[in-house]
């Protein structure tokens, strides 16, 4: 079984990008994620979807809406509120050859399942010398900007990138979300797929007092209706530039871009798309070109993924750097209930960091 699955991702014609996809539809990120699961369920009878309120109700963010009606209750089903059980059962299903896509309703609720993710999902392949694998994709909305307070706003990605044996993926557009989720589901390793919930319905720029643009105004909302992949481990240069490199993912890609547009600085903005495997080549080439690097994430600063990025950039680009690597991140505190916009690493703090790097 394991061997069969080893070949899974390469067994069919790879359709990287949407080159020969004719039919597209305007989708927001929720619809794109829904479409990825729908397409995968059509293609692979082993794909099953499980989680709290995902079936009958269609998910609290509607990401699984309609899937139970279409694919049946055996393949799209509700679970009790038992995150440890959800993840553990999915790992067992995966080891037996299924391809489960469990949803954890909010990333903040993933912690009861973390033992199963770290001790089982991430380690099964290694300790069975490749005999058993856990090809699960744990989807979970993450991040702030929705007044969720400490239990609905966290960005725990670096807990997972710290664990060998897991992949961590974070999309920033509907187009990417669908292509990356398909790759994640087809991937033969466990993937944590964090969905930036603040941008489910539109690309939030961090200017919280301005109306939010819907995705339909954004080019990346043209999403092929069929199957396509965006490979894991390939970053996306969303804006080319010469003056400095900005590394971001999820919501912060849009915030960074908006600040760059507003400031008129010629920054190269890189959307990492997958934190692990990391596309270090793209990062390295860019920083060597610009000589300056700013890292932006919502997660808390200390031991955040930015620390890893900063270390890598320093190791690989030290002699090209013209200024210290800067980080704009969440503060090292729990996510507060009030003062969200003081907490959120928004345009003002990013603008200040850019000014500082450019002065050095």
């Amino acid at each position, binding site marked *: 079984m394991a061997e069969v699955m080893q070949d899974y991702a390469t067994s069919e014609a790879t359709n990287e990008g949407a080159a020969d996809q004719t039919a597209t539809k305007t989708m927001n990120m929720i619809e794109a994620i829904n479409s990825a699961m729908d397409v995968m369920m059509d293609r692979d009878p082993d794909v099953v979807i499980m989680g*709290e*309120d995902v079936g*009958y*109700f269609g998910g*609290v963010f509607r990401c699984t809406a309609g899937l139970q009606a279409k694919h049946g209750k055996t393949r799209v089903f*509700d*679970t*009790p*509120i*038992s*995150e*440890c*059980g959800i993840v553990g059962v999915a790992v067992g299903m995966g080891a037996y050859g299924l391809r489960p896509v469990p949803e954890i309703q909010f990333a*903040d*609720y993933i*912690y*009861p399942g973390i033992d199963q993710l770290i001790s089982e999902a991430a380690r099964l392949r290694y300790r069975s010398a490749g005999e058993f694998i856990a090809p699960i994709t744990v989807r979970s909305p993450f991040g702030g900007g*929705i*007044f*969720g*307070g*400490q*239990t*609905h706003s966290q960005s725990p990605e670096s807990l997972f990138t710290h664990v060998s044996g897991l992949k961590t993926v974070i999309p920033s557009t509907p187009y990417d979300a669908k292509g990356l989720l398909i790759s994640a589901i087809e991937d033969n390793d466990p993937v944590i797929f964090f969905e930036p919930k603040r941008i489910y319905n539109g690309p939030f720029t961090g200017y919280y007092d301005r109306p939010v643009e819907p995705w339909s105004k954004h080019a990346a909302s043209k999403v092929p209706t069929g199957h396509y992949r965006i490979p894991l481990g390939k970053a996306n240069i969303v804006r080319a530039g010469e003056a400095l490199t900005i590394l971001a993912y999820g919501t912060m890609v849009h915030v960074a871009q908006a600040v760059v547009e507003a400031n008129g600085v010629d920054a190269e903005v890189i959307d990492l798309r997958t934190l692990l495997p990391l596309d270090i080549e793209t990062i390295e080439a860019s920083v060597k070109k610009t000589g300056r690097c700013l890292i932006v994430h919502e997660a808390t600063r200390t031991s955040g993924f930015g620390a890893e990025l900063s270390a890598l950039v320093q190791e690989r680009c030290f002699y090209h750097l013209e200024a210290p690597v800067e980080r704009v991140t969440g*503060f*090292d*505190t*729990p996510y*507060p*209930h*009030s*003062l*969200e916009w*003081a*907490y959120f690493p928004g345009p003002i703090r990013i603008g200040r960091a850019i000014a500082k790097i450019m002065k050095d």
Partner: protein
Amino acid sequence: MVKTPAAKPERKPPAKSVSAVLPEEGSNHPRPRDPQRHEATQDELLHFYKEMLLIRRFEERAGQLYGLGLIGGFCHLYIGQEAVAVGLQSALTPGRDSVITGYRDHGHMLAYGIDPKVIMAELTGRGAGISRGKGGSMHMFSTEHKFYGGHGIVGAQVPLGAGLAFGHKYTEDGGVCMAYFGDGAANQGQVYESFNMAALWKLPIIFVIENNGYAMGTKVSRSSAETEFYRRGDSFRIPGMQVNGMDVLEVRGAAEAALEYVRGGNGPLLMELKTYRYRGHSMSDPAKYRSREEVQNMKDTSDPIEAAKAELLKMGVTEETLKSIDKDIRKTVSEAADFAETSPEPDPSDLYTDVLVEQY
């Protein structure tokens, strides 16, 4: 101003081991006596009525403030369930017994006589809120009242409750912990770890399952293999009691029997309170999972406040008295709302306090 716990009283470790083991194998485990509906005096019932009405009016107002955008994020109303918190809490000894609950916590706070102003101000995220705006609706505490929160993670408060009960036993203060959780929370694994430890160590705790029929959009029958929740402690030899949670006097009567049992050193007890929430799970719940008729029928036939009112009228309390009570309560709630709207947000520097004792 940093909240510091009260000075630690001098004490010696308990003479008897706290982790005293179960009775001999096979011995008959004691059972609580059959609960009797509480025979309330007119004054007593009037008091319960006022408390329930305060909760209802408070929650209605909170719903309005939410609609106006003054409360952000997540807010779970207690409307319909008032008799549970009021009936149970009224049987506890203030200052001795402890209480812990989940995120649907406004009612429990009010039933404890905590000032509605500081509760409402917490909902609006103001510095004068009981958690100084950092916790929000789901995270409120009052050490003064031995009210230990207010917890947003479903089920997480249950082991904490067992720990509080351990504390009662260790300090020999004669207190009992009342740990509330929902029918959905009853499916979390950590609940059963807590049951086992509480029974093993004979901890003075009452596990209270507020069975309102739904966990978000999931009906009990779709998530639970055993829907008679009072039986969930069976395999730990924890006796269970099923109580009509829509009748404040039945709740109060059951609480007395339960407390008698637990205070008698018999270890934990499980109470299932059959109740119903009228409103959506939180403020953004489309409520498509149940019919309007179902909700209306509960309101018409089982409302705890209407039932108490009818009983009061029968006892000879006049309509006028009840009207003036309602007026007073509306005034209290309006004052709380005004306070919550006009008091200032916390200072941004407050974001950094209370992460650890010292600031880094």
